[in-house]
């Protein structure tokens, strides 16, 4: 059916490095977003699609350590980069401090925004270990949550900040 239909876009096979593993992306249209490839081709549903145009942050992942909305990045552009998704944050069965703090603080409701928020909070606290209240709010304002009203998410972030701060101070 595909044959030489004008819409049978050129497709290519390429490799991505995701959560430390080499993954083959086979015969893919080069216009596919990183989010689509992660979810539809690589079996990594942690990053969510809630707007597909960079407005909600549910699809947040790291590309070479930089926080991106994976719905707005072409997968093919990430070929030589290291991609980290929510599935790749923790070591085995352990939770990261951010994940544990979301759980402890009750920052999770429906959870659809949670993977994106967990990734975004890791990004914030790795860049800025001691953010003030306003910096926290601003940094994660690109991650919409319709359930929690943000109160407990903020509490979770501040708990990790304080706990990391205590650990780094002798």
């Amino acid at each position, binding site marked *: 059916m595909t044959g030489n239909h004008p819409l049978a876009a050129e497709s290519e096979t390429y490799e991505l490095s995701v959560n430390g593993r080499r993954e083959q992306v086979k015969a893919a249209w080069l216009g596919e977003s990183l989010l689509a490839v992660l979810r539809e081709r690589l079996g990594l549903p942690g990053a969510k699609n809630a707007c597909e145009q960079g407005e909600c942050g549910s699809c947040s992942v790291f590309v070479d350590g930089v926080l991106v909305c994976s719905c707005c990045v072409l997968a093919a552009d990430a070929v030589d980069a290291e991609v980290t998704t929510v599935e790749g944050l923790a070591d085995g069965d352990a939770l990261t401090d951010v994940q544990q703090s979301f759980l402890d603080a009750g920052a999770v409701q429906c959870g*659809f925004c949670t993977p994106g928020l967990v990734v975004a909070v890791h990004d914030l606290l790795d860049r800025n270990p001691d953010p003030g209240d306003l910096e926290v709010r601003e940094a994660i304002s690109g991650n919409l949550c319709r359930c929690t009203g943000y109160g407990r998410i903020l509490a979770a972030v501040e708990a990790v900040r304080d706990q990391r701060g205590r650990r780094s101070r002798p």
Partner: protein
Amino acid sequence: MRPTAVGTPVDRADARSKVTGTACYTVDVVLPDLAHAVVVQSTVPTGRIVRIDAAAAERAPGVLGVLSHANTPSLAEVPTFPQGPAGQRRPPLQDDTVNFDGEHLAVVVADTLHHAAQAAALIDVAYDREEAVTTLEAGDELPPSGIFGEAPDSVRGDPEAALARAEVRLDATYTTPTEHHHPLEPGATVAAWDGGRLTLYDSTQWVSGVRDAVAMTLGMATDQVRVVSPFVGGAFGSKAMVWPHVVLAALAARHVGRPVKLVLSRAQMFTSLGYRSPTVQRLSLGARQDGTLTAIVHAVTQQTSVFEEFVAGAGYISRSLYACPNVAVRHRLVRVNAPTPTVMRAPGEAVGSFALESALDELAAQSGVDPVALRLRNFAEDEPQEGLAWSSNALRECYQVGAERFGWERRTTEPRSMREGRHLVGWGMASATYGVHSEAAAARVRICADGRILVTSGTQDLGTGTYTTMVQVAADALGVPVERVTAALGDTDLPPAPHSGGSQTAASVGPAVWSAALDACSKVLALAEQGDSYAEILTRHGIEFVEGRGDARPGASASRFAMRSFGAHFAEVQVDPELGEVRLTRFCGVFGAGRILNPKTARSQMIGGIVGGTGMALTERTVTDRRLGRVVSPNLSGYAVPTHADIPWIDVCFIDEHDPHVNALGVKGIGEVAIVGVAAAIANAVHHATGRRIRDLPITPQTLL
């Protein structure tokens, strides 16, 4: 029961899977050979389809099939709530008429999502466009036939005479815009046929409603349809009823002979899962000089679609919140070329309270009475409409505790009298109330020989914490730690439970779990003496497990008592006098909502409701182009929901309330009451800050400049 789990801040049972990204929502379901469907929607608000050309789409790469009215079998209508589970009675793809912009006209199925989307863009539709009514103001007002079984109009006493005699009188019109739920997970369905049996994975508040609606539409026996929905990415009413895309997924899967996943886009969410109708509310208050209410007339106009009726009882709150001898409530509808509206968080009360609680604030200002004192003066000792005693009512405590926590006595009366730097500061408050609802529900509790306990019920967890609270209830009934108990929900193969809406899940399913656990417990104890553990008893008898069943239904108390949750909201805003920007800087909500099963999940749910109300007050509005009848900017930039940076620290407090009448657990339900009155509290604070009374939501910088 010696409660050790209920009432304590137990961690969410499902949190681990959610923070690691492994919780499987409908949009994440993958089945072998899964195909993808994309919906094509109308681009005119009314008219006829003169041509729908799918030839190019059918030839496009990867396409497996296209459905439109040209090749869709005839489908049965499903009644809308409360007669039936549908959100829209009219089934999809049945004829050539178009009733609103964004109506489903075709479905394209392909091997990949990309191919389906690409082909969907090739469907060519030509219309014969007709004259449309695109706004509430443009149509004729009609009386609705009923509101969830209640009369749309009611009169107690003689409001007109009382208004004519009133020492203080207020007449004002308040409006609220179209609002959308926008849960983060869009509407989504995966359909898989196995011969004549259909399995649907669906993002829904009502698995058995989906089963019944789809079976009815397709003319199937209900036992041939199974619906599975373990995780729902938010709903707020948008998934309470069954919408046409669900049946489209089932039809598409049958058409192509493969399982099909259909996910709505964010833009399609504006026309596919209902919305909160805009309202125009005319309110007249009569009062004595001291602020005692003598008359309330609350007349509400809302919109519905041109082909069916949905109406929320926005005016009803005026009948039951305050003691007032003379009250008239009236509801009218205008038919608009728009989708059918639906329930949205506290349907009725959320918008009705904006008008009533704003008007009370205006009355307070006019009569020179403090807003809290005014409400206390009009406190209803009994339910005023039916004259029944309250099962419990902590409203006075809510005012008192809220005022203390907020520091209300430091409020200066005059508008524009409080400042912080160059910002005007305002403090406002409002009351909240929402009815206690429950329906018949069933549950099973299994005690296993290895000591594990499994709770099952065909209810749903929308993010509200049902998995966690039902585990707590079973743990306490059996006297075991929560770690030993797990719950399985969201499946029509499990014991039947009602839709998760109207804040009724804990109050309906909780008592069923409780009695199922007691039943299981008594079955084990029948085998042996007390003192041994369940596991020891079962192991000694060589029994793998015992299972208890529980059924619960609303008790007889409902006819003897009036049952409602109550609350009080206190808001502080800062207004930039040059930019007209309103920032919420402090908020306190206090609630009397019966027993709180889990303060950790409950607190977060209340904050979420308050922030939903903040969105109503300050940012949320769906704008429709009057000429095109089309939503302008159908995305999360065009429809602004509050973000982290918009929200201050929010203080939430529950009054310790023991209500022996509502149900065996003393639970009233909390999901809706949190949002009721929030928009009014904020609007009242804006008035206190600026002296400007804004009667039209949302309060944007444009409205203040």
